């Protein structure tokens, strides 16, 4: 039973995916279709009858006769706090549009808490990647995509403790000196714009990135015989970014360096 609706869910399904089957959307920040649940952001919490704490619906699996409430006052209060705490430490103005919408939905105020912001210089070590720790919410998506859930390159992990936690290369070496192969599968899953292709980063900092003027066209990569699907983000007749659809069974949102950045030869 989810929000009063009888749900016939498959064994092993998560609460969040079961809710989706009856049209109930549960917000999330760290969950991604092509990754395992990281259980990091706590935005997807719900109430389960008989369980004292709120539970993370992205990873908790359904049980027979479970009674779940996804949008109670207590749940909403928690989600608002999560959003406000994140906003107190992190810049969220480049975040996915869903995240911005959550602030409206849960009446969260980014200035509610007077937190300390990370004010570190952008890390730009090459012509393809930009990393901004000031936008990172430590959701682990990039680490998981680089690691054993997709790319298996293991170039990045979380280093440090508490407020000093950072996504880092081995021994914090510069990215070109690390194991990184520049597939950008970390960029693809970043929900807050902490990781961006350099082209997007430059346009955003110069205020020439205008999402509303962008059209996305689906096509197929031309750099080998695998046939990865591409989403070409086009603004004013120029490609400004390439991504891959996370629901296509060939590429599952992932690409290699040629697929994600090779388009730049057209400029």
């Amino acid at each position, binding site marked *: 039973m989810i929000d009063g609706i009888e749900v016939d869910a498959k064994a092993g399904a998560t609460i969040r995916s079961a809710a989706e089957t009856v049209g109930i959307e549960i917000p999330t920040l760290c969950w991604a279709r092509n990754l395992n649940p990281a259980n990091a952001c706590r935005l997807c919490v719900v109430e389960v009858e008989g369980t004292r704490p709120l539970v993370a619906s992205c990873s908790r699996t359904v049980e027979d006769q479970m009674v779940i409430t996804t949008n109670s006052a207590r749940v909403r209060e928690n989600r608002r706090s999560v959003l406000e705490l994140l906003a107190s430490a992190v810049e969220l103005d480049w975040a996915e549009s869903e995240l911005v919408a959550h602030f409206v939905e849960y009446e969260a105020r980014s200035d509610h808490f007077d937190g300390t912001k990370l004010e570190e210089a952008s890390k730009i*070590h*090459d*012509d*393809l990647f930009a990393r901004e720790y000031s936008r990172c919410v430590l959701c682990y998506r990039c680490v998981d995509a680089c690691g*054993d859930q*997709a*790319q*298996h390159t293991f170039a990045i992990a979380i280093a440090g403790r508490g407020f000093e936690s950072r996504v880092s290369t081995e021994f914090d070496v510069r*990215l*070109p000196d690390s194991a*990184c*192969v*520049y*597939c950008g599968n970390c960029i693809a899953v970043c929900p807050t714009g902490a990781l961006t292709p350099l082209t997007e980063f430059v346009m955003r900092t110069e205020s020439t990135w205008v999402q509303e003027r962008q*059209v996305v*066209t*689906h*096509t*197929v*990569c*031309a*750099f*080998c*015989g*695998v*046939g*990865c*699907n*591409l989403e*070409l983000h*086009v603004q004013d*007749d*120029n*490609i400004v970014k390439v991504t891959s659809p996370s629901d*296509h*069974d*060939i*590429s*599952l949102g*992932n*690409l*290699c*360096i*040629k*697929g994600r*950045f*090779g*388009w*730049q*030869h*057209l400029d």
Partner: protein
Amino acid sequence: MFGVGGGTSSFAEIEDADLILLWGSNARDAHPIFFHHLLKGIKNGARMWAIDPRRTSSAKFADTWLGLEVGSDIALANALAREIIHNGHADEEFIANATSGYAEFAASVEDWTPERASDATKLPTAEIRALALAIGQSKKVQICWTLGITEHHTGVDNVHALINLALLTGNVGRWGSGLVPLRGQNNVQGGGDMGAIPLRLPGFTDVSDAVQRERCEREWGASLPDQRGWHMSEMFDAMHERALRALWVIGENPADSEADADHARAALSGLDILVVQDLYLTRTAQLADVVFPAAAAWAESDGTVTNSERRVQRVRRAVAPPGEAHDDLEIIFDVAKICGHDWGSPDAEVVWDELRRVSPSHAGMTYARLSDLGGLQWPCLDESDPGAPFLHGRLWQQPLVGARAPFAAVEWRPPLDTLDDDYPFRLTTGRVIDSYNTGVQTERYPSPIRTGDTLDICRADASSIGVTSGDRVAVASRRGAIEMTIRIVEGLPRGLVFSTMHFPGAADVNRLISDAWDPKSGTAEFKATAVRIDRCASEIVAQ
């Protein structure tokens, strides 16, 4: 394979395999997203054997790496077959029901003892025996390969040797087992399917097939030759003999990509007329009399491409081509019009629907279905057909429907370019992860991991020549000499050096390669060149 020109399996099948043979393929670098599927297979419990002279980035994920001698693949495959037979692991029921030529094949491999194969491959007999046992004991084996198998003077025989292993153990026609040739380019499969091969018509039917020829003649209102044409290697021979005088090159850079590049450039320069249609002014285009600037097919025009799992997918125009560049279709229609054939206004979907009328395998693939379903795998016979994730399931039907799948006895012949005291090193070429073919497109984006025109070599060989990383050397073959920069790497055995072909402007590697080609495929032996490496490079090249 078995009369059908395509890989047998879907990429997803490797996730359910028990045993993965990655043979002559560095998919980690050359097909990175296929490798994601392969890694899922390993996580699901598959064992993986990497069979490659180099310990590549792919081989590092393998349970076992077999670093065989370049060009000794048939010796290994034949010995594996013999061991499988002697172990009692041949699938006799499948062989009896669905194959032909088994007795002759079994006799042909009987001499291939592990000891004899060990001499040819330089692999320990224990590893040959262990792999044979692994194949024999696995239910679902995926055999994947790339140009490490096909770019030899015995390329077609190499492929047959792998097919033999699949037939011997019944590893074809079932989900999770199969033969997976990974195509190097986005539409190699589609080009062949469309009939852009000298002996094929659209639908991959032979030009001698009267029924298909008549179907095309009716559609096109023209009579078609019933004789095969020239493949590219034959065309170059014909250019040298002046039997071929005019050439129209579309989206290819043979001046850089052909083996024995000096010879190829001479052939192109000697033509009466050379027309080149390309995105950029490539080295080939610089030799041309006429250049048609073309649109980028994947972003500036509409159409389809077919991937390595026979999946036809839509490419779409997202941006306008620059300057005077035009869609390939427009250019061809315009030339036809000048030649007196008005084909109307070019429309990719209209051309596709014409193909659907002449190729039964594509008949069910409307543009709408291709979009809605994320592509379709041929054969797709009508608009209710979901397409074919894997081929040859019929081989498991009893009684058998259709033709038997033939074994092909193949004999090992070592590379033509032999090593001797003058040319003691084996040079093999291949791709790296951030670049593509002759670099026409990939040199135009800023990769932070570009290695450039290096000659990769193991530390021991570098020491023996007296060079270290960063040193310039002269690399000479029986065709010519070029300068390169030494890079000492892990993963190469003694006597083997490696280079990419991505930077012909800086290191014209294909000048070194022999243009002797496999008479069955027309593919040159890019993987096995005998070279000499010397210090003091500039003096030797100048001579």
